[in-house]
């Protein structure tokens, strides 16, 4: 055993691990974070993949980071600076486009061009979704009560939950119930008529899941993406100066300022368990480090079946983890460009290049993309969410050059015949070919191309099956069921062993809520002496 003594060891320096470390350190605990890669951040990293070109390699935009975390950890002082991503442009198949702009009047004029009825409905829709996000907000900040428990704290939590739902009033409660259970396509059909609008909006409902826009449950994922708050404004997406890695760095810096120690290139092999209690960790290097608290920021599969021996766990839990769905469905293509893409629908330079470009011309387009994946193929014509970070933050690319980040769905982890280098290239080609239909000059601009399949995402970040949320945001994997019933309160059956990744409530996105809630729960429980 090494001589250094720690109160807590955090396995994995993803943003949730860093948040947990910062909160524990802030409370005076001596914390060590162990990250296997040379950089912290997990899936929120910035890396110079090609000389001079910096990429937010995986996660690329932010809106869900909890404001209380930003406040508590004083992140702006540590470098958090989020630049707004103001617009979304959806190229249409008829050569036109659908724009969504920051200015509400401009936005309304644009939508009226396609459907005056939808422009009217949008005002009410926006208001309702904001109410819905507010309705769910308290739940995001709550340790999930166990509905089967009779413990006073659980009963109090259930009562609080019941009271909260009743306080919403019938109309909002019903709307929330619909959102929790419907498909995003059905939900949006109730509001809008313009297909490309429904498609672009419903795209938020499929991200990170193996669902199509017509699959029930996708409306909840839509809501999950509405919960973002930047400077108090809901549904605002932003781009971190320096890429998403800079967010991780700011949290790491805050954690260090509170006294936490962070080690990179330090992969953990095993959690050491003695007599049903975690006593420390064994590193890949062979070193062992002891601490009374060990916290895994990895996903549930790694937390329960890799870091510890399943023999130390109850069968129910092992079975629950086996059932837990990852089903990675998205890939990422990062391009180093010699110039800017020229969209057929909006030729030349323009403000649209500072926002997102969404390849989602119709609901059927997205649904067909899903159909390919359902049967084990990547989408021949995928959904893509494209941003050009160098337009917002010039330091991301050399002068005159650009970086383009393309989030792609669907790319199933379990591809027919398995992923190979040739399949990866074919997937990259499908992405570029599809983009070229809307921006014909793109192929000539490409200097370098990085294609990441779900398998690559798993290999690099450790996220099982490449699922960006550490497990799907499906109704049966949320709240007190995330990751498994009975063990949704960040603790585990092994004393002193805790979980704090996005595989716990409330789930994925650069949110940090899991890390914060886990840390607060640990502090609460260990203070109480259990």
């Amino acid at each position: 055993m090494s001589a250094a003594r720690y109160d807590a060891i955090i396995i994995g320096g993803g943003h949730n691990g860093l948040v947990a470390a910062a909160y524990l350190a802030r409370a005076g605990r001596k914390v060590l974070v162990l990250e296997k890669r040379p950089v912290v951040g997990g899936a929120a990293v910035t890396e110079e993949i090609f000389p001079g070109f910096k990429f937010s390699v995986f996660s690329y935009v932010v809106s869900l980071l909890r404001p209380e975390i930003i406040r508590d950890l004083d992140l702006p002082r540590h470098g958090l600076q989020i630049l707004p991503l103001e617009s979304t442009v959806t190229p249409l198949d008829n050569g036109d486009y659908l724009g969504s702009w920051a200015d509400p009047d401009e936005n309304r004029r644009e939508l009226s061009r396609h459907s005056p009825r939808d422009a009217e409905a949008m005002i009410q829709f926006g208001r309702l979704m904001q109410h819905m996000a507010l309705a769910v907000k308290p739940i995001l900040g709550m340790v999930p009560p166990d509905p089967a428990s009779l413990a006073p704290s659980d009963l109090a939590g259930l009562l609080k939950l019941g009271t909260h739902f009743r306080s919403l009033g019938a109309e909002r409660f019903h709307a929330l119930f619909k959102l929790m259970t419907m498909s995003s396509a059905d939900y949006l059909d109730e509001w809008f008529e313009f297909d490309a609008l429904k498609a672009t909006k419903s795209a938020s409902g499929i991200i990170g899941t193996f669902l199509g826009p017509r699959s029930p449950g996708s409306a909840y994922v839509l809501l999950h993406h509405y919960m973002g708050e930047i400077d108090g404004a809901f549904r605002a997406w932003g781009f971190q100066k320096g890429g998403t890695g800079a967010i991780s760095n700011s949290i790491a810096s805050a954690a260090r300022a509170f006294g936490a120690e962070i080690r990179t290139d330090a992969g953990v092999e095993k959690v050491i368990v003695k007599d049903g209690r975690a006593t420390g960790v064994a590193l890949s290097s062979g070193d062992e480090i002891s601490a009374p608290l060990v916290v895994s920021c990895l996903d549930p599969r790694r937390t329960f079946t890799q870091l510890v021996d399943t023999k130390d766990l109850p069968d129910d839990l092992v079975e629950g983890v086996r059932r837990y769905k990852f089903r990675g469905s998205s890939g990422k293509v990062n391009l180093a460009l010699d110039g800017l893409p020229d969209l057929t629908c909006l030729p030349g330079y323009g403000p649209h290049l500072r926002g997102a470009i969404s390849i989602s011309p119709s609901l059927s387009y997205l649904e067909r993309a899903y159909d390919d994946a359902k049967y084990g193929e990547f989408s021949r014509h995928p959904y893509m969410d494209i941003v050009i970070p160098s337009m917002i933050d010039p330091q991301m690319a050399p002068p005159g050059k650009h970086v383009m980040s393309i989030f792609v769905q669907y790319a199933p982890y379990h591809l027919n015949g398995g992923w190979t280098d040739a399949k990866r290239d074919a997937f990259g080609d499908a992405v570029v070919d599809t983009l070229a239909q809307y921006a014909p000059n793109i192929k000539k601009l490409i200097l370098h191309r990085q294609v990441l399949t779900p398998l690559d995402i798993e290999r690099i970040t450790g996220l099982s099956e490449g699922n960006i949320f550490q497990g799907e945001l499906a109704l049966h994997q949320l709240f007190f069921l995330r990751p498994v019933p009975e063990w949704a309160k960040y603790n585990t059956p092994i004393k002193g062993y805790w979980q704090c990744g996005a595989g716990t409530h409330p789930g994925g996105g650069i949110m940090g809520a899991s890390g914060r809630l886990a840390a607060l729960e640990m502090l609460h429980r260990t203070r109480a002496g259990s």
Partner: protein
Amino acid sequence: MGSAFDAIVIGAGLNGLVASAALGRAGLRVLLLERGPATGGEARAMQFAEGFRASPLSLDAGWLPPVVARGLGLRPDLVASETSAAVLLGNGQRLAVARDVARATQAIAAHSARDAERWPGFVTKLGKIAGFLESLYQLPPPDIDTTSLSELFPLVGVARKMRGLGREDMTDLLRILPMAVQELVDDTFESEALKALIAAGGVQDIRQGPRSGGTSFVLLHHLVGATEGSIRGRPAVKQGPNVLANAIEDVARAAKVSIRTGTDVAEIVVRDDRVAGVALASGEEIGAPVVLSTLDPVSTIRKVDPVWLDPEFLHAVQKIKFRGIRATALFAMDGLPDTTGLDGVVSCTPTTVALEKAYDAAKYGENSERPHVEFSVPTLRWPDLAPAGKHVVVAHAQYVSDKSVGSDKSDGVADRITKTLEEALPGFASRVR
């Protein structure tokens, strides 16, 4: 308008019969109006070919809540088929799952020993969850906004029932209800035949495929009232399809309910913001202070002058999804090639992928190239529905777009159903009369 009646019930399907019988027994003067020639709605067996009868709309007897039967003083003689469900696998192979768990386990063991081992636990779990739904379904839906204790009381009852399930079953209830039936079967079983057999129960009459969330609930919903060990289908009245409707009609008549068939209601009359009665298609008006409609919500509000309805309420009703996706075909058969295990619900779709692929077309408003066909053979239970030695086959085909009804697109659907049945049950087509 003088009111000769205290209440008018529109539609004499089973719900209309039950409602009017109950009101009649409570002493109200009730008029029951039915557009068709007979009461009983979809439960009624009708002649579709010379000497052949069937009730076309359901492969399943449905559920008569015991509280309803008791309330009407009925003691129906309910019997479940021996086989719960079967799936035809091509080449004359079939998997038939009996309600008797030991026999079912034996049949499943031919496909997977592991699945056979897991079967008893699986059906017991589904039975417990369906049992919870059963008690839930006997309560009126709670009003979330209410502050009255009497409204809250049932909610407390539901919560207690749910916790009464115990930790494991309760979390399973909450976990399983929103799941895709595909996930449910994948979590438990490995045999594709068994998975397909179960999954077919999750997509009945819904425009969803087995991989769509919520289809586990559809499976469970149809197990409310089923006997232990069932995966599909509920007990039916032993004496035949019309017996229950006739019995309830008798109760209604005994309670002095007036029944008029062949009577089409054109409008629900509203005066001074309250219901005043109904106007018939014939022009006749009948007054009553209460009108109950058993029609679907959209058909119901279409009978009311919209000036009396709150626009938000109207809007909400118009948002209700109907989306019929099933075509029904009735076959008068000279015989059947092999009836072993065909006395329950029989699916002709041997894999969950084929089930999902049949659904894909529906997403784009088209008819399945290879529809998912299920059938039952009511004559195996009630031989008198056909001449001696002959059979009736009631086939349901999904997914057929509701937009294709009456259009050119509906051509070919019947042929595809027959083709599917012939493939699943070689020798079928040549025996169709």
